[in-house]
């Protein structure tokens, strides 16, 4: 695959054999070789110097492992079209769990053929196989391309493969060969006790999996959606309104599924599979379980409109899938006689729409916190994910003027202050270059920092409510107590009253 990556990129293929080199233990060794180089008996792991000695005309490129991993991930995304169970195997393999999916593609042989053709068309060399267990399929794919082993016949299918197909570590493979065990059948012929004693339990597990005797489930790359619906198109589609229409009809089928189970979607994802192998996914979340196709379609339209780089259909999408990644129980609500049940629903829909357009971190609600530090007393949390809270807002004292400002500066701003007495309220202060004369002041309200939360002790703050001559009200504080915590404490503006 690494050589395929380079050859796909270069328009004019070089006719020299291509090898990728990597530095290992201070020596340049071959990392991957292309078909031509392989025919000249160059193998990965060989020293670059000896490769050059064997083949004079050799084009050598530095290996780029992250790029390879990225490419493999792209192919894996593309393979999502066949089954949601896709996992990456090593640096150049993919495992697909196609249980129950093969009939959609016309049976196992047809599906294997289709996968191979599609990936070859994208410019890759592919080897594939189907078997009852992942390990058996892996061994067959790498050493016996295009084999299909029905469940129960894995042992026979892998019998003649070399021991390297077991995916053991190099030392163990080498040791097996030295012991004269060249094929899997020969290894399987030994008693398990012997093998465990020599190679450990892990090796025996791997052998059993390859023989189809036990199975280790593959872990999929993505969270499996709770529900999904998809449209496959015979001809790739490009037209925007066609895509929008398709999302609406997918939403209808998805909502039908959700309704059967009495659930509503909280997290939705639309995946667009381009015919040339690119996959773009767009996810959105909702504030409450949702089961209305029109609203789902509308939210996706908002989301698509708001994308800074719109998804590029290229030569068209041949598969669009809508999945509910997370669903929750949707309780049918009972409606009181005079209440307006639509209000909450309307607001939840508005929150979803705004979140789809601007991002869920921008639409916020406030929640009380159990602290008396002014800036921490109420936090803004994304409205879609606001957790239930048992705390209440601190009740105001009747008859008392506001003790907290309406607006608080994100960062208190230092001011220059003239005060009559060190501990008293300021007489005049200068904030943002304007001088304010204090007409009246109220305070101090002494707020100590929470020493049980901070490692470093922080100074106590003395807050003053201050009104200047124009009637504007400010919330100032002195950071630290005179004489005890600081010799010259600084003053800050923290907030503005209404």
């Amino acid at each position: 695959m690494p050589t395929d990556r380079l050859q796909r990129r270069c328009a004019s293929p070089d006719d020299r054999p291509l090898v990728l080199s990597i530095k290992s233990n201070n020596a340049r060794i071959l990392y991957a070789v292309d078909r031509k180089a392989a025919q000249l008996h160059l193998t990965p792991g060989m020293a670059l110097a000896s490769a050059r000695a064997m083949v004079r005309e050799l084009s050598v490129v530095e290996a780029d492992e992250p790029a390879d991993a990225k490419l493999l991930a792209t192919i894996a995304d593309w393979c999502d079209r066949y089954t949601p169970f896709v996992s990456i195997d090593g640096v150049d393999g993919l495992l697909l769990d196609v249980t129950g999916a093969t009939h959609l593609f016309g049976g196992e042989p047809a599906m294997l053929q289709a996968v191979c053709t599609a990936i070859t068309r994208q410019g890759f060399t592919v080897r594939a196989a189907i078997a009852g267990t992942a390990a058996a399929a892996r061994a067959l794919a790498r050493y016996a391309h295009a084999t299909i082993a029905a469940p129960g016949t894995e042992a026979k299918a892998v019998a003649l493969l070399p021991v390297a197909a077991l995916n053991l570590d190099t030392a163990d493979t080498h040791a097996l060969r030295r012991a004269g065990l060249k094929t899997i059948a020969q290894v399987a012929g030994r008693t398990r006790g012997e093998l465990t004693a020599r190679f450990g339990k892990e090796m025996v597990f791997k052998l059993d999996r390859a023989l189809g005797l036990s199975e280790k489930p593959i872990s999929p790359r993505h969270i499996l959606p709770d529900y999904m619906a998809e449209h496959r198109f015979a001809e790739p589609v490009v037209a925007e309104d066609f895509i929008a229409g398709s999302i609406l009809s997918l939403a209808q089928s998805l909502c039908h599924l959700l309704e059967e189970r009495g659930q509503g979607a909280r997290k939705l994802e639309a995946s667009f599979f381009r015919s040339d192998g690119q996959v773009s996914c767009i996810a959105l979340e909702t504030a409450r379980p949702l089961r209305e196709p029109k609203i789902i379609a509308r939210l996706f339209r908002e989301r698509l409109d708001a994308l800074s780089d719109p998804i590029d259909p290229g030569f068209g999408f041949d598969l669009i899938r809508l999945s509910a990644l997370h669903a929750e129980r949707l309780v049918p609500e009972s409606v009181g006689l005079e209440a307006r049940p639509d209000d909450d629903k309307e607001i939840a829909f508005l929150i979803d729409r705004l979140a789809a357009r601007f991002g869920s971190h921008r639409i916020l609600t406030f929640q009380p916190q159990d602290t008396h530090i002014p800036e921490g007393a109420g936090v803004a949390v994304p409205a879609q994910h606001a957790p239930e809270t048992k705390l209440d807002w601190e009740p105001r004292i009747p008859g008392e003027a506001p003790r907290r400002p309406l607006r608080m500066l994100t960062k208190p701003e230092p001011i220059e202050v003239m005060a009559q007495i060190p501990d008293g309220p300021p007489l005049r202060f200068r904030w943002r270059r304007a001088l304010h004369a204090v007409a009246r002041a109220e305070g101090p309200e002494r707020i100590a920092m929470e020493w049980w939360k901070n490692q470093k002790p922080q100074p106590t703050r003395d807050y003053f409510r201050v009104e200047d001559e124009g009637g504007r009200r400010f919330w100032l504080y002195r950071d630290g107590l005179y004489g005890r915590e600081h010799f010259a404490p600084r003053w800050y503006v923290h907030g503005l009253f209404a």
Partner: protein
Amino acid sequence: MLWIVQDFSALEYGMPVPTGFAELGIDPAHLLMLRAANAEDALRASIDALSCYGLGAVILEIAGNPKVLDLVASRRLVLAAQHKNVTMFLLRQGAVAEPSAAQTRWQVRSHRSAATDDWGMPRFEAELVRNRQGETGHWVMEWSCDDGVFRKPDNQAAHSGFVVRAHADGSLAAAMRIAG
């Protein structure tokens, strides 16, 4: 109530804080806040919000005089507000007066408290500069945090009827300008 704040004005004038609302007698649980990256997003969001009749009011804060907020944009806001009967307040900060389609325009500034020793309720000086449906005027009023109304700041007759009820302008859009 939905309050739309631009990122810029949050930096310049500070973020609205829930404790402050609670102190003014407004339940912060009824408050939704949207932080918009720029004036364009803020306008777009407010049009969206005005189509939702579950909201009591939409407050849109616009700092300065952005180009996107022209007569057409403000007319669109008025129509949207009238259609769904949602009150909309457009708060202009640090702006130069310019024509708008709003029903009323207020200039609000803080006013000095009474010359007593105790720290009183906040007072405002409000000038109704423009009113499409009636007279203009000038009032000094005091926000009474306990019952959520503006009162005439008159010490002797503090309980004598109120001048302007909160949200007195019903479903109409009002452009308010905070001076200073």
